[in-house]
């Protein structure tokens, strides 16, 4: 079929993708490449800061009974070191790698929600700054990166812990948004022909990681909010004196904390799975087995949290289930290790720096994995619990299993980021120093641990006879730091002095190596077509006419607005043309408003919190409801496209984004309900303290309004369809009335509840979900109001975008209604059972 339009002049297309100049333009950037680079650079800076803290600790421990650091400062340093490495380096770094690389690797022009990734970056940056601001106001948190209660309660921890919780909250929001972004991008923006079974393994690992982030980070976000509610408003979720449980905190924290290890590890394995085939010059052995291992690891990682609590006094029976699951996950990791070895077997790969890091990783990770199997066995774990053996184990896993592949990944993709090669000589020296330094630093810790040297203690007696091991270990840490320094100098120097890399310096097989280095901001002028798992090796492929037509229609087009192809989840065939936003300050504004919310709680000026919440709502509304003129422009541009693809697919990015948001909300409410039942199990009486049982009839009437609103919203969605004859205004108004009615009714009932949230743990656990639900209902109501406002504009009535917004509104309402019924049954009816 002939094309109806010739490509527009290059300048128009380039102009569409240009960003605003100047500092404001810099702040307003939303494209994946600059945002990804910001994530990478910022998190790497935090890594260096965390490394300095580690060196200070190792200096203190170099000899017994050392007095360089006092116990308080040591506590603060190990809290900041662990928090920095886990929250500010590892996860944001892999997110940055994904944000930068995924569109290049799967053939998209950007991510699914560019503004969301920019928002995530700002949240991460503000959270990181808040973390380190504690050094300047002398409020450094000191309860460990795990913040166990009651140590992290107000009785034992000062304001520093509020900084820790609220900074962490910001970082978690950034993480969750990146998780949703990554998942939807991988599912919907793959190049035509890139069916699921042809996806690069880095994309597979990021798909699983993105989903894990959504579940794990949401759990931590809710847990940290609950702890802050306890600290700021006296709601005793974790305080046994108020009927709470400190073990509940451990359950929630480790339900996040263990998957967190795999959230860092899986992307690292994805990096390895990209580097190994390139240097072995052949496809990865057992592609499908590796995918299976990645998926199994993703699931099973959520079943291991209790193995951090073997010494906490849980029933023996439940410990053993988790011990079994902990042993089983080694099989999944082992399958990947065998696949990498099999791929390299019999080849003579060039031992370039990226591959050196991979080989180092294989050695160290297997060593860390073996000690992991050891501590998965309950009796052994009880022996080495809280000793340096565990420190050695997790550093072998995290540095060996995560940092080494990531340094290899930086070395591998640096030419793509900058257009220049790193110095190979300096790269080898850095690798040698880091590898030797690491082993010298951490291997002796196994022995110290077996001798009984406790962790998290600032000093140790000479009678423990571990001085020699500690001195060697400290020497190794400095050697490793020297290696990192060489690595950083190499990065900086090669930016100017490195040899030009060309598009594919390693002969890689994945799609990004077919692009110039560095790529254009839109990456692909024409979306590529993929016919196998290694498009750069396989060359041109035949394609169905419809796919070619769709790609040609997007060849340097459309102009006036940014666009990319959205494709089918399973097959990767073109489905719709996706509008992408241009530069905007909306993400920064929303992140600043969120910062204000948290800052108000921190300084206990709640007016700031309220102002921040209003600002956040306003920013999100402005974000979700673009100006009608913009909608009209997109609509007009869309009809000019030649490919016959719709602007909005029925299961498009918006739908998947909403599913991601609802999954996050579902998980968040799930954590609240779980906490309620957990506290109930361990309470002698429920409700505690003789508080009255909750009402049944009036709350039922209130909660019933939400299903009524959902039904009305469904009717509105049907009437939005192009062939519908009736106006959607009446059902929309009905949904709005139902939402408004619920807000008033439920608000009054909450106000009239005969006890306060701080009365005891029951009251706290009852109020938390009930109040959070009120906020959710408010969001659903505001969504309806927005749709109603746009529907009243004749020019927009029954446009695909508005129809989509109504359909998404129905999803939100349906979820809210179902959740309301669940909460009613759990909190009201369940209390009588």
């Amino acid at each position, binding site marked *: 079929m002939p094309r109806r339009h010739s490509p527009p002049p290059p300048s128009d297309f380039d102009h569409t993708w240009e960003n605003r100049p100047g500092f404001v333009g810099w702040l307003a950037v939303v494209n994946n490449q600059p945002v990804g680079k910001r994530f990478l650079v910022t998190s790497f800076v935090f890594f260096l800061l965390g490394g300095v803290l580690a060196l200070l600790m190792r200096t203190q421990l170099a000899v017994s009974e050392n007095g360089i650091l006092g116990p308080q400062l040591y506590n603060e340093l190990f809290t900041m070191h662990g928090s920095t490495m886990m929250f500010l380096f590892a996860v944001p770094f892999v997110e940055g790698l994904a944000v930068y690389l995924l569109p290049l690797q799967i053939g998209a022009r950007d991510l699914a929600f560019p503004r969301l990734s920019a928002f995530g970056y700002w949240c991460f940056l503000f959270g990181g700054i808040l973390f380190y601001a504690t050094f300047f106001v002398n409020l450094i948190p000191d309860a460990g990166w795990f913040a166990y209660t009651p140590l992290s309660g107000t009785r034992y921890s000062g304001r520093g812990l509020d900084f820790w919780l609220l900074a962490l909250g910001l970082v978690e929001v950034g993480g969750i948004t990146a998780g949703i972004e990554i998942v939807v991008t991988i599912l919907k923006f793959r190049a035509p022909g890139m069916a*699921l079974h042809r996806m690069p393994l880095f994309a597979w690992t990021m798909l699983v990681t993105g989903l894990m982030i959504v579940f794990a980070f949401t759990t931590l976000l809710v847990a940290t909010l609950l702890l802050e509610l306890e600290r700021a408003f006296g709601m005793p979720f974790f305080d046994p004196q108020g009927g709470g449980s400190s073990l509940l905190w451990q359950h929630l924290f480790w339900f996040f904390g263990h998957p967190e290890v795999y959230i860092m590890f899986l992307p690292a394995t994805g990096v390895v799975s990209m580097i190994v085939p390139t240097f072995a010059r052949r496809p990865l052995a057992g592609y499908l087995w590796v995918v*299976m291992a990645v998926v199994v690891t993703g*699931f099973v990682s959520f*079943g291991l949290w209790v193995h951090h609590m073997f010494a906490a006094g*849980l*029933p023996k029976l439940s410990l053993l*289930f988790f011990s*079994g699951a902990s042993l089983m996950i080694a099989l999944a990791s082992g399958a990947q290790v065998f696949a990498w070895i099999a791929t390299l077997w019999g080849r003579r790969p060039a031992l370039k720096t990226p591959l050196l890091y991979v080989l180092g990783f294989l050695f160290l990770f297997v060593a860390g994995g073996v000690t992991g199997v050891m501590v998965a066995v309950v009796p052994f774990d009880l022996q080495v619990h809280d000793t340096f053996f565990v420190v050695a184990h997790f550093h072998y896993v995290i540095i060996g299993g995560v940092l080494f592949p990531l340094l290899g990944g930086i070395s591998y993709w640096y030419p793509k980021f900058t257009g220049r090669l790193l110095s190979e000589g300096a790269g080898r020296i850095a690798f040698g120093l880091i590898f030797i330094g690491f082993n010298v630093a951490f291997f002796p810790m196994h022995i110290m641990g077996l001798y009984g040297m406790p962790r998290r203690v600032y000093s140790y007696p000479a009678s423990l006879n571990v001085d020699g091991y500690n001195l060697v270990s400290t020497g190794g840490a400095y050697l490793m730091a020297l290696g990192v320094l060489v690595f950083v100098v190499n990065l900086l120097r090669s930016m100017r002095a490195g040899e030009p890399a060309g598009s594919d310096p390693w002969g890689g097989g994945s799609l990004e190596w077919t692009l110039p280095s560095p790529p254009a901001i839109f990456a692909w002028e024409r979306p590529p077509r993929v016919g196998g798992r290694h498009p750069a090796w396989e060359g041109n492929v035949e394609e169905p006419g419809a796919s070619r037509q769709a790609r040609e229609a997007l060849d340097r087009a459309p102009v006036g607005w940014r666009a990319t192809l959205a494709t089918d989840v399973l*097959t*990767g065939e073109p489905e719709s043309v996706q509008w992408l936003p241009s530069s905007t300050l909306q993400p920064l504004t929303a992140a600043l408003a969120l910062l204000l919310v948290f800052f108000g709680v921190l300084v206990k000026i709640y007016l700031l919190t309220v102002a921040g919440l209003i600002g956040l709502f306003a920013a999100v509304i402005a974000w979700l409801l673009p100006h009608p003129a913009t909608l009209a422009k997109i609509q007009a541009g869309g009809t000019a496209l030649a490919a016959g693809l719709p602007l909005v697919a029925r299961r498009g990015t918006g739908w998947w984004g909403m599913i991601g948001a609802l999954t996050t909300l579902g998980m968040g409410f799930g954590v609240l309900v779980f906490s309620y039942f957990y506290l109930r199990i361990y309470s002698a009486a429920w409700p505690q303290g003789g508080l009255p049982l909750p009402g049944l009839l009036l709350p039922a009437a209130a909660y019933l309004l939400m299903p009524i609103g959902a039904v009305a919203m469904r009717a509105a969605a049907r009437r939005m369809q192009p062939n519908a004859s009736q106006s959607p205004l009446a059902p929309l108004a009905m949904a709005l009335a139902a939402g408004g009615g619920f807000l008033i009714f439920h608000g009054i009932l909450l106000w009239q509840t005969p006890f306060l949230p701080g009365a005891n743990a029951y009251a706290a656990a009852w109020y938390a979900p009930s109040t959070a639900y009120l906020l959710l209902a408010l969001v659903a109501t505001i969504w309806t109001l927005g749709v109603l406002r746009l529907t009243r504009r004749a020019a927009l009535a029954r446009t695909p975008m508005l129809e989509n917004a109504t359909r998404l509104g129905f999803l939100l309402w349906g979820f809210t209604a179902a959740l309301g019924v669940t909460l009613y049954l759990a909190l009201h009816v369940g209390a009588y059972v």
Partner: protein
Amino acid sequence: MLHGGDGVSRLRLAAGLLGGMVAWLLHLAGAWYIAEWGCQRGFPALALGPLNGVVVALLGLTVATVGLAAGAGMIARRCRRELATVREEGIAAAAGYDTARLGVMLDAAGLMIILVQSIPIFFYLRAC
């Protein structure tokens, strides 16, 4: 339905793909809850012959989730068989075929982990 009307719905594919892992997750969460709740609330006192209440509940849960994982595996296997003959005909069938293969592997893994995880039940028939 997949493209070309080959009779394999995406719902079946998804069930075959993730059923085994979901069954494992249900087993672990359920077993943990039964152990904590049952041990706390005195379920061991509810004897059923030589077995206490916790063990009976755990065995029931194990049987149910093994059935779920096995059922998902059968769905995946059937999808794979149905798509084997048409997988050369188009990308939808090829993607579906590999997804079904992956499902068989994942369901087998889920089944295996459930069984390994259930071993403690038989060791701790009377203890909590």
